[in-house]
């Protein structure tokens, strides 16, 4: 067994940056937060940025001519630029602010989708999708008469690509998650994008679980659209973004309409604004966009290669420690080894329901997810009523994994597993 390593200087500094991790639970336990795939914690710098905006230069953007309005506009647009550089977009205008990745996906479905899909076309997705990257396409298929097809996954949740040519035949869109939120499976995006483009399909990536955890370069991957949530990458809730290639965004009709997305309005006609504002009707979420910019600064400082390596190291350590519990009935799901998945581990403990596992862990301050993780069709296919899920991020340490293992032994004791 690998010995538990004390957090190094980098990790100790990171831990200091997250105030919530220093607040004990109501039972006086240390908070062991293992649910970052649901939402991440926020560093003090992000919290401070929100307070600074509201207490020093809160003003509406793009209109005011006074000093604080200009400050707000500049900070808001600078945050967009930070996002663009973070994902290596060709230009800032290819980054559209949304509430989250769900809204970003719906934006594409309601605009590009309705404009481009016809009866007889196909939308291809996969069997591991989060409901956010499934329900919009079901609706679009219903609305346009297009056919919805699924790339299957095997028992480990790994994509099965034997039938890819047939699946992509007649496809207009391939919409898939880069990383599965339930199993941590990493899609072979490079290859799938090439194949989809060769078949004449556009590619939309749900990157809610990948952009926070690994280097992602949209130009290198050559994806057409990418949806991301800010709150899973150290940023505030209520802010996320859509990346889209300029030519596609230009040709798309607007999504929500009203103020700010217009250039000129007459009583019976409207000329839309330029990118990216064409898709940003109404007053934007200024504070949270600025906060997300600061979150991106924080991640860039750590370096996304470090973030990915940290996830792999912690996942490898967790998989090794979890193996101790196999004799007590613990089963780990998803691809192996750790390098083949993101920092997400779904599991079940004997005949103990995942909800009971999570409730017992909670009494020790250990936060894990339990349920279907918004992937009901995948759970049904796999025959799992529910799973427990531990997920890691930059502030997690081997001590957190140790706490998880100790608490799982306690759950096994309570349920009298041998």
């Amino acid at each position, binding site marked *: 067994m690998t010995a538990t390593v004390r957090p190094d200087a980098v990790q100790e500094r990171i831990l200091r940056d997250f105030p919530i991790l220093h607040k004990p639970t109501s039972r006086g336990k240390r908070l062991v937060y293992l649910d970052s795939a649901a939402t991440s914690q926020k560093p003090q710098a992000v919290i401070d940025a929100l307070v600074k905006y509201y207490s020093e230069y809160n003003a509406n953007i793009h209109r005011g001519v006074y000093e604080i309005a200009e400050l707000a506009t500049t900070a808001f647009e600078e945050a967009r630029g930070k996002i663009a550089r973070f994902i290596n977009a060709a230009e800032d205008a290819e980054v559209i602010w949304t509430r989250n990745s769900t809204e970003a996906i719906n934006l594409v479905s309601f605009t590009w989708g309705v404009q481009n899909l016809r009866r007889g076309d196909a939308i291809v997705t996969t069997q591991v999708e989060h409901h956010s990257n499934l329900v919009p396409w079901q609706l679009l298929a219903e609305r346009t008469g297009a056919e919805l097809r699924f790339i299957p996954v095997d028992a480990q949740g790994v994509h099965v690509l034997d039938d890819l040519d047939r699946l992509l035949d007649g496809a207009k869109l391939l919409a898939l998650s880069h990383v599965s939120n339930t199993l941590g499976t990493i899609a072979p995006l490079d290859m799938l994008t090439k194949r989809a483009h060769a078949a004449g399909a556009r590619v939309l990536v749900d990157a809610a679980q990948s952009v926070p955890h690994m280097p992602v370069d949209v130009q290198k991957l050559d994806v057409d659209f990418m949806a991301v949530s800010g709150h899973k990458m150290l940023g505030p809730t209520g802010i996320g973004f859509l990346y889209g290639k300029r030519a596609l965004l230009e040709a798309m009709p607007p999504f929500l309409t009203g103020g700010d997305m217009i250039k000129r309005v007459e009583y019976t006609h409207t000329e839309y604004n330029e990118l990216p504002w064409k898709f940003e009707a109404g007053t934007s979420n200024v504070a949270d966009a600025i906060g997300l910019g600061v979150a991106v600064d924080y991640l860039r400082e750590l370096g996304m290669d470090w973030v990915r390596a940290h996830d792999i190291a912690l996942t490898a350590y967790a998989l090794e420690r979890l193996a101790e519990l196999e004799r007590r009935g613990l089963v780990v799901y998803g691809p192996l080894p750790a390098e083949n998945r993101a920092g997400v581990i779904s599991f079940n403990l004997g005949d103990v*329901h995942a*909800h009971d596992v999570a409730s017992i862990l909670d009494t020790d301050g250990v936060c894990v997810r339990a*349920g279907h993780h918004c992937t009901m069709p995948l759970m049904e296919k796999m025959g799992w009523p529910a799973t427990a899920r531990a997920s890691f991020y930059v502030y997690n340490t081997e001590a957190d994994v140790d706490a998880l293992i100790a608490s799982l032994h306690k759950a096994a004791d*309570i349920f009298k597993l041998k």
Partner: protein
Amino acid sequence: MDDFYKGYILEHYREPHNFGTLEGATATFEDLNPLCGDRIRFDLKVNAEGIVEDVRFSGRGCAISQASASMLTDTIKGMHVEAVAKMDKQVVLDNVGIGISPARMKCATLGLKVARSAALGEIAGWPEEDTP
């Protein structure tokens, strides 16, 4: 919720009472808790006097949902179906006998919800003149 897993809850989870389906049931209802995927079905056999003569439940879920459903079958056997339809969640909480956090309340009351719906279905199926 530290006393969450009292011995009798685990007993009901591992060896639930009146588990299965019922041949000749007069009312059946099934529902699920979409939050966790728990699923419970109740079969009732109600006699001409409106008394629940027999009951079975089936399904899958956490210890709280399964144990509370199991205990509920013991409670409603012999009750009048109209009383079953009007049961309050306090019945379930008294049965379970431990503190239930807001997050787990849906688990604890899923069986109750299903049993009440089955009872209402039974009553709705009565001929007009028999309905009080």
